[in-house]
């Protein structure tokens, strides 16, 4: 209706493309101090001694802080996990020992950044090396324990079992076994790194300008951590250059800046992360190993059961974890209709950078796993990849998954048809056949994925029944300003998604005005009273939580305006209409020129209220709306319940050729079909699809956070990490279908994470290209050197086995 569904030009872009955005690091003022963090060069070591005297003596240095001092002034951050997680002392700085390379061991606040770095170099730290554990399975042996008080590296274990798994395997026509698969470690590396400015004021409160993306959560951790009341933390964001979940746990660094400001007598302290610091210590994506996977199939190639053991590697601290141990189960069966599943899920800490909820968080790991299963079974059973999917896709909606999640809407076969059309499936089949005859390693692959959005925080109780979290919510405050402007404040922290634009569209539709007449304040501010504990931008939810809050607030404001107008125009409320007249936005009596404009209404309430009747005493034209999705607390015993409100879907198809000469995987064609329900702003959605796709292609082909056996990060610069850039992004053919969600007021579904679709798609296409060479793709990273190794030693014999029951026997 109206503005919804149109590509209104992004309001934010005017300031951003002119270089007039305000990112945290842009804020500079005389007298401000700059923070440098001295980080551990070792992954696991005891801190024997720290000598800061020389650093403190350097002119221009305001203060130096070490772990001891931090520990004396802080409470360890709250842990989400059940015992033994409560024994993990998570402080913003290492105290007696370091557990990952890059962990802060001291900070210096000085007059300039360069000076702070000079001083940090003068800090003398003596380390006693400890054995590092970098592989998850090795860590689980507890050979070397990171958090000694916890007594183990294992942070969580649980079994997710649904349906009749044993029965399904007993009755299976074939069983496919895949002993080991691995999802690699990478991160979405936003253009703007973490940054914050902290000021410990004379009143004992702390002022933050930062780019934290989940301030509702950060405040709850920081306040007790800094021994302050929540209201003593004033947290603000403005323009943010990408987040992708990576900025959720920069509250750790906010604490360090705050403590440095406190020690420096309340001077403002700025910290801006460098790229190498970002790669070393800002948060990585979860790494996951899948062991002893078994898949039961019926005679027609329909998957009836899956069982497997998953080990998640969360790096050195649990921070947002072990939430990842349940988040994946939002998409337990992926897009497939199997009813019997048993996943034994374990998580461990390792001496690597802690993980963050990176774009596609924990779900893409599960979706990749399921897509691998589908493709490996298809190849081994000789079923074409598209047919295999059509046999197994869920087709009825709303659909309740075996673990109680409700997929709101979707049409996967239609997406597949559209994807095939976009890429030219039939033509490629012929070209691939011809290419293979000529000896080329060329293949086509499909990746279907889900982007579950608006999560039910009640799922946290599945990892720890005692957590006081459930549901979800978001806030919008809105008022008719003193001069009649519509001013909107959001509880979200936009970081490039165009929230100012989309929110304006929604308000404009409710009030019947132009989006340019709606002013949405940039950024987030706790002082606006526009936040709840869930406030922030994460987990693909703005289109549902954020916009539902905006919509609700606009309705409330409209109701007040209607009452006010009815009184002033001496008309019945139902005779009024909203729109724009000669004097700007107004409310008028239908079919007449009797109208009252916004300025007049605002002035009545704010300046001229003796004109008003007593019955309008509650009309303030200043409203607050909290949207709460309809969730119940899940059954933690059965691990059952609706964990997410909406399920956007992506279906990607790629044609990839692996060079016989160089092993370079080259994308010859790429199609991305998206379904995020009703589109609010198609151009913004398209941009999100493009970005998520690029991120996924980068992760699949280029990006890997590789550690050596001592826990030394080998990819700590962009020259080594090689994030994807425009030069490596193939042309992406974009398609869209809309299956409106029945669960959101506007039919929209949260989107933006894309569930890592390209990761599944690349694995599928590469497997298709290399299957003839005896290769089964069991890893998610496909750089040329890795493809070289696998082509040298084709793995099909160890990577998969097929048992066919009754009649014909399998290959092995």
């Amino acid at each position, binding site marked *: 209706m109206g503005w919804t569904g149109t590509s209104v030009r992004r309001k934010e872009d005017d300031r951003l493309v002119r270089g007039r955005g305000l990112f945290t690091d842009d804020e500079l003022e005389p007298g401000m101090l700059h923070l440098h963090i001295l980080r551990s060069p070792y992954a696991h070591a005891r801190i024997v001694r720290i000598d800061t005297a020389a650093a403190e003596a350097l002119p221009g240095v305001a203060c130096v802080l070490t772990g001891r001092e931090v520990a004396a002034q802080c409470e360890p951050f709250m842990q989400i996990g059940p015992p033994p997680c409560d024994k993990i002392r998570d402080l913003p700085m290492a105290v007696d020992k370091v557990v990952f390379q890059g962990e802060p061991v001291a900070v210096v606040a000085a007059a300039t*950044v*360069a000076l702070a*770095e*000079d001083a940090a*170099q003068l800090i003398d730290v003596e380390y006693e090396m400890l054995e590092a554990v970098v592989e998850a399975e090795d860590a689980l042996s507890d050979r070397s324990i990171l958090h000694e008080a916890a007594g183990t590296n294992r942070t969580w274990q649980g079994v997710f079992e649904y349906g009749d798994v044993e029965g399904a395997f007993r009755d299976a026509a074939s069983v496919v076994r895949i002993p080991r698969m691995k999802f690699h470690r990478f991160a979405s590396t936003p253009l703007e790194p973490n940054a914050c400015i902290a000021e410990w004021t004379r009143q004992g409160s702390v002022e933050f300008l930062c780019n934290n993306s989940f301030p509702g959560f950060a405040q709850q951790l920081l306040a007790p951590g800094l021994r302050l009341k929540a209201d003593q933390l004033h947290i603000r964001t403005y323009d943010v250059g990408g987040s992708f979940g990576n900025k959720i746990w920069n509250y750790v660094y906010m604490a360090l800046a705050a403590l440095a400001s406190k020690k420096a007598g309340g001077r403002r302290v700025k910290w801006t992360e*460098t*790229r*190498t610091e970002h790669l070393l210590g800002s948060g990585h994506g979860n790494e996951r190993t899948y062991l002893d996977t078994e898949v039961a199939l019926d005679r027609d190639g329909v998957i009836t059961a899956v069982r497997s053991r998953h080990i998640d590697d969360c790096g050195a601290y649990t921070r947002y974890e072990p939430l990842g141990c349940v988040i994946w189960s939002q998409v337990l069966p992926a897009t497939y209709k199997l009813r019997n599943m048993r996943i034994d899920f374990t998580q461990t800490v390792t001496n690597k950078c802690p993980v963050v909820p990176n774009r596609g968080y924990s779900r893409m790991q599960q979706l990749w796993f399921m897509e691998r299963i589908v493709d490996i079974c298809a190849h081994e059973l000789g079923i074409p990849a598209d047919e295999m999917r059509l046999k197994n896709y869920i087709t009825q909606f709303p659909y309740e998954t075996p673990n109680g999640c409700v997929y709101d809407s979707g049409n996967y076969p239609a997406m597949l048809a559209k994807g095939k059309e976009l890429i030219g499936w039939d033509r490629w089949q012929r070209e691939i056949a011809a290419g293979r005859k000529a000896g080329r390693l060329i293949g086509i692959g499909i990746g279907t994925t889900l982007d579950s959005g608006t999560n039910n925080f009640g799922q946290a109780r599945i990892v720890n029944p005692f957590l006081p979290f459930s549901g979800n919510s978001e806030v919008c405050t809105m008022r008719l300003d003193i001069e009649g402007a519509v001013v909107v404040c959001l509880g979200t922290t936009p970081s490039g998604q165009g929230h100012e634009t989309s929110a304006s569209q929604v308000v404009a539709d409710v009030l019947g005005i132009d989006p340019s007449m709606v002013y949405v304040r940039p950024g987030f501010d706790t002082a606006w009273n526009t936040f709840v504990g869930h406030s922030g931008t994460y987990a693909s939810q703005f289109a549902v939580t954020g916009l539902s809050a905006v919509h609700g607030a606009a309705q409330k404001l409209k109701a007040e305006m209607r009452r006010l107008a009815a009184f002033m125009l001496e008309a019945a409320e139902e005779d009024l209409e909203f729109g724009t007249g000669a004097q700007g936005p107004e409310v008028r009596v239908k079919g007449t020129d009797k109208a009252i404009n916004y300025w007049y209404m605002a002035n009545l309430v704010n300046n001229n209220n003796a004109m008003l009747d007593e019955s309008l005493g509650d009309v303030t034209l200043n409203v607050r709306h909290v949207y709460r999705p309809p969730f119940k607390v899940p059954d933690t015993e059965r691990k059952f319940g609706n964990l997410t409100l909406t399920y956007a879907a992506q279906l990607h198809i790629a044609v990839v050729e692996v060079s016989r*000469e*160089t*092993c*370079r*995987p*080259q994308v010859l064609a790429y199609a991305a079909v998206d379904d995020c329900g009703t589109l609010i702003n198609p151009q913004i959605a398209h941009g999100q699809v493009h970005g998520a796709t690029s991120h996924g292609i980068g992760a699949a*082909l*280029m990006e890997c956070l*590789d550690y050596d056996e001592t826990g030394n990060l*080998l*990819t700590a610069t*962009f*020259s*080594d990490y*090689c*994030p*994807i*850039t425009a*030069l*490596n992004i193939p042309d992406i053919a974009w398609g869209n279908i809309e299956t409106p969600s029945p669960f959101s007021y506007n039919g929209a579904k949260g989107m933006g994470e894309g569930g890592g679709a390209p990761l599944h798609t690349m694995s599928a296409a590469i497997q298709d290209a290399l299957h003839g060479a005896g290769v089964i793709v069991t890893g998610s990273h496909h*750089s*040329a*050197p890795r493809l*070289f*190794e696998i082509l*040298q030693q084709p793995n099909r014999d160890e990577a998969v086995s097929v048992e066919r029951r009754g009649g014909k026997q399998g290959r092995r």
Partner: protein
Amino acid sequence: MYPAPFRYHRAATLDDAIGRLVGIGEGARALAGGQTLLVWLKMRFDEPTDLVDIGRIPGLDAIEHDTKGVRIGALATHARIARSPLAKQIPIVGDCANGIADNQVRSRGTIGGSLAAGDPSCDWPVLLTTLDATVHCRGPAGARTLPADGFVQDLYATRLEAGELITGVSFALPGKGSAGAYVGFKRCAPAFPTSSVGVQLTLNGDDCTQARIALGSAALTTIRAQAAEAELSGRTLNAQVIARAAEAAAAAADPVPDQRGSPAFKRSLIDALVKRGVEVARRRARGETVEVSHEYY
């Protein structure tokens, strides 16, 4: 990410620069485009006391060629070389210049700095070895020339003496029937190549009378693959001959394992790149226009 403090000097002339470098001694470094040096300083791998900026010394950035040969001043940037008529006339030079890093790096980085850095992954030392170029130097003891082949002696070590600067490079124009190609393989623009290969052949039809092959990122310094050259020189080129040369080049390489791949992978790349380089050189010798540059991923 911030260098340790240093003093900055801007040299007005070559002699001024040499004088300052000699006068300051140990702690001084010449600064050209800064695309290698500043990275080291920012990471604090190196903490010189003084930087002598040679970047504005006039007359050191000329790109000239006549019938006798080519002369490129030490301060010519990768970007300027890439856009120069020379890059069109001698395509192997364009291959190299265009393949280096991204626009930003190419706009500042210089050919002299690339040689002086002594980095086994830098492209110019490999190209100049392939072309049998001469390096022109001037130092406190006066001017001298050194062959590009062997100019980089060891990891980050060159034959330059203390206070000595590169003023330029020169090489002969490839003769009739002589053509070359420079090919590299890298993961993305701002990454150094995983492997790179320069090939220059003198051909009479398919008969190869002379061959020069140099390898980058293949050992601790640029190496010349003489055994591979021997496989080609004096032979009629065919798939077998080329394969033997490629194999010999791969065998001559001694790559280190790192982020970019295992030694086995890098050897296989060298094998592939030699074949590709020979192929392109052959086509160019026949008068075809072939665009090649570094390959990504």
